[in-house]
């Protein structure tokens, strides 16, 4: 028997009637046609399907769409910089060649953003450990680590700048 789910995806409310066995990843890809969220495995290891659920990185292939009832979801399509261009993490991946075939990239970027939001100045070991839920077969991770380091510095600077600006206005 189908069920109805509603959530907010990339700032827009969505509602759909689905088979209960629909995974969140399937819901995003097939119902919403947001195909930037990729599926690379069936046992929850590769992380290509990583999205933010209520602000936390989760694997969209490892959760039912029904479990996300009422949640706020961010997928790669909703990730943007303050100016509407690339987010600092996306820009750093490009700058440091942190992607090749691009298939793991959306999940990698989503997890990396969440990682940096929780560790403002992550050391290399913290980044490597923090990315252990995302498999990449192309890059050997070397440039991904560099990209995350660079993005972290940029995001920290942006946060500081934003704080100063707010302080100045107050």
């Amino acid at each position: 028997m189908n069920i109805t789910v509603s959530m907010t995806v990339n700032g827009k409310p969505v509602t759909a009637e689905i088979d209960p066995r629909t995974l969140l990843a399937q819901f995003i890809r097939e119902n919403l046609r947001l195909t930037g969220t990729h599926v690379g495995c069936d046992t929850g290891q590769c992380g290509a399907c990583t999205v933010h659920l209520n602000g936390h990185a989760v694997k969209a292939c490892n959760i039912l769409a029904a479990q996300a009832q009422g949640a706020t979801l961010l997928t790669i399509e909703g990730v943007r910089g303050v100016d509407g261009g690339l987010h600092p993490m996306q820009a750093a991946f490009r700058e440091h060649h942190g992607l090749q075939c691009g298939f793991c990239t959306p999940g990698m970027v989503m997890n990396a953003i969440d990682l940096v939001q929780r560790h403002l100045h992550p050391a290399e070991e913290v980044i490597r450990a923090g990315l252990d839920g995302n498999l990449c077969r192309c890059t050997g991770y070397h440039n991904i680590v560099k990209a995350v380091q660079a993005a972290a510095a940029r995001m920290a600077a942006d946060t500081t700048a934003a704080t100063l600006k707010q302080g100045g206005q107050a």
Partner: protein
Amino acid sequence: MNAPVIGQSIKRKEDYRFLTGTGTYTDDVTLPGQTHACFLRSPHAHAKIRGIDTSRARAAPGVVAVFTGEDLARARVNGLPCGWLITDVNGQPMKEPPHPPLAQGKVRHVGDQVAVVIAETLNQAKDAAELIEVDYEVLPAVVSPADARKPGAPVVHDSAPDNTCYVWALGDKVAVDQAFAQAAHVTTLEFINNRLIPNAIEPRAAVASYARADDAYTLYVTSQNPHVERLLMAAFVLGLPEHKLRVIAPDVGGGFGSKIYLYAEETVITWAAKQVGRPIKWTAERSESFMSDAHGRDHVTRAELALDQDGKFLALRVATTANLGAYLSTFASCIPTILYATLLAGQYTTPAIYCEVTAVFTHTAPVDAYRGAGRPEATYVVERLVETAAREMGIDRATIRRRNFITTFPYQTPVALCYDTGNYDATLTAAIELADVAGFEARRKAAAQRGKLRGLGYSTYIEACGLAPSNIAGALGARAGLFEAGEIRVHPTGSVTVFTGSHSHGQGHETTFAQVVADRLGIPVENVDVVHGDTGRILFGMGTYGSRSIAVGGTAIVKALDKVIAKGVKIAAHLLEAAEADIEFRDGAFQVAGTDRKKTLAEVALAAYVPHNYPLDRLEPGLNESAFYDPTNFTYPAGSHICEVEIDPETGVTQVVNFTAVDDFGKIINPMVVEGQVHGGLAQGIGQALLEGCVYDPESGQLLTGTYMDYALPRADDLPSFKVGTRETPCTHNPLGVKGCGEAGAIGAPAAVINAVVDALAHLGVRDIEMPATPERVWRAIRSARPGKKA
């Protein structure tokens, strides 16, 4: 003078779409009326199919059709062909058993396709597949190449009763035997080159459709070479004229060899799309990828190196048994032969080499090219032997290599190849410096104080890339040409679209090929777009594998550019009222030599498309040229890798703490992209050495490493940051001077890692360790080597 474009780390044009989730991979393609396919796969390694009852499945909700091997046989769908004929030591052709896209009569490996269900939804297809009743008579299976030829081994194909596809040899056996008789020292090793599963992160997928209007098929598929896919599927399997099948390989999420081949699934759904009259999508689940993607490596080898008293190599003798799996995949037969034995000279002057290869069938997934494809196996043989010989003879490991390096070029090896250029001493010297080998002893001591065993290992590798001179390949058994095609379309206002037969699935061709064009035409990189992966748009192509894209595909583009410029000279001469001989093309303009009179490329292009003032009597309008390029030789990238490991002797855990690679890829178009290719290759090479190994149960033939829960794919925290460098000896026989870089890391790294592990343990008496050097294997090696410890 324009700023140089070649040699610059220009950021990739393709990245924006990948970073914003707007790429189009095969599974992202959804066609109106699309149905979904689920393949029922064999749960057994070897079984007779007594019968298949699909009646319940056909009646299940949402099911559109169910097909089995019998249906395909009735429709005269042929088996999947092998693209390379190997002739055995007796002059006989290899055994080529049939490879039906859906099993007929027997299944021969776990995951073999038995039937396909096509339904409205994927869940319905899967539910129905479970309702198919297959009456199996389970038979004993053989999975290891070492067991395949043992008396009484279960037979995979009746046409090869000893499970032998071929016994093949290369080299002068008599000369080798003589050299061994006179050797001062012989080093012998026996080892397994572990079986690997490629694991591109995008699983294989296909979307097939058939249009009654023009009786034509369209196939979106995860392919590294859509034209080859079309040729094989249309001409050999489905019996279709090629113009009725369009194959599109859109964004492809990694390949590493595994997406070169024509597979059963896309063939079946292409055929079925006409039967059901609706588009069909199939996407592999990762578990299916593990079972059904072509695997790599899987050699058992005995290798011997003969040396004189000074450590000069006299001869090399190699006997390898290579596992081909249950069926011959598209290029399976040439990997452990043509791409393996020919590389056994390595970087050395070894005067006599003999290699015998026995290729066997087993009840496992087909084995074919995986990143490096034969060359990592050859490098492992040579570099493990060299390092072991050095230790046995008490010669420094770098010194023994330098003593044997080839230093004059061109150099004809005793195993068929002719190296055009190289400077092996330079890469080794640079690697030693970059790796700070001088500081190693101090690091080893510091590690010992922390209770860790530290070791350092070298690997100096050669590869043959830029496949290949078609005539030579043909003489060696290739059933296809190995040229590449390219087309340059200069648009009326001077921007350019490049159509290439090479396929990019991570390599960055959209950027690097654009750099080549921008450089030659003197226009901004932004004005050049590269189109690939569509037989409907590109004249022809042989695709991407064997690190061939820039060397062969790039050269085809250069040849087409030469034609564009030559035609532009004629147009410009007309416009400038000068003699053609006086026109020079430089910095994006055609100029009358010695004057400032010139026409830009855009002006010439406009004249070509608006030919009002144009030599129409002598010249066609338009500025669109194509070229096919067939290389005259292979290219020979080479390099030196140095690995440093630390081992925890209590647990056997091995950590790569330093990895240095200095490579010679000839001229480099985009250093950033090249470094990325090296990093990725190294990760796969280190993965092979320490983590990855495909394991089948020797009794049941079940795949024991069928998910990421059991197959250890390297993660970010398994690897160090790499130190990479390059030295440059330009290739002598292509205009760009390029050699290719895609596989180098995977070729050089495994031997470097294992040499480092053995170095760390050598003082305990450890001489060899099997890949992957898992913690337990290392722990056992330590324990059994330590005197006084119970085994």
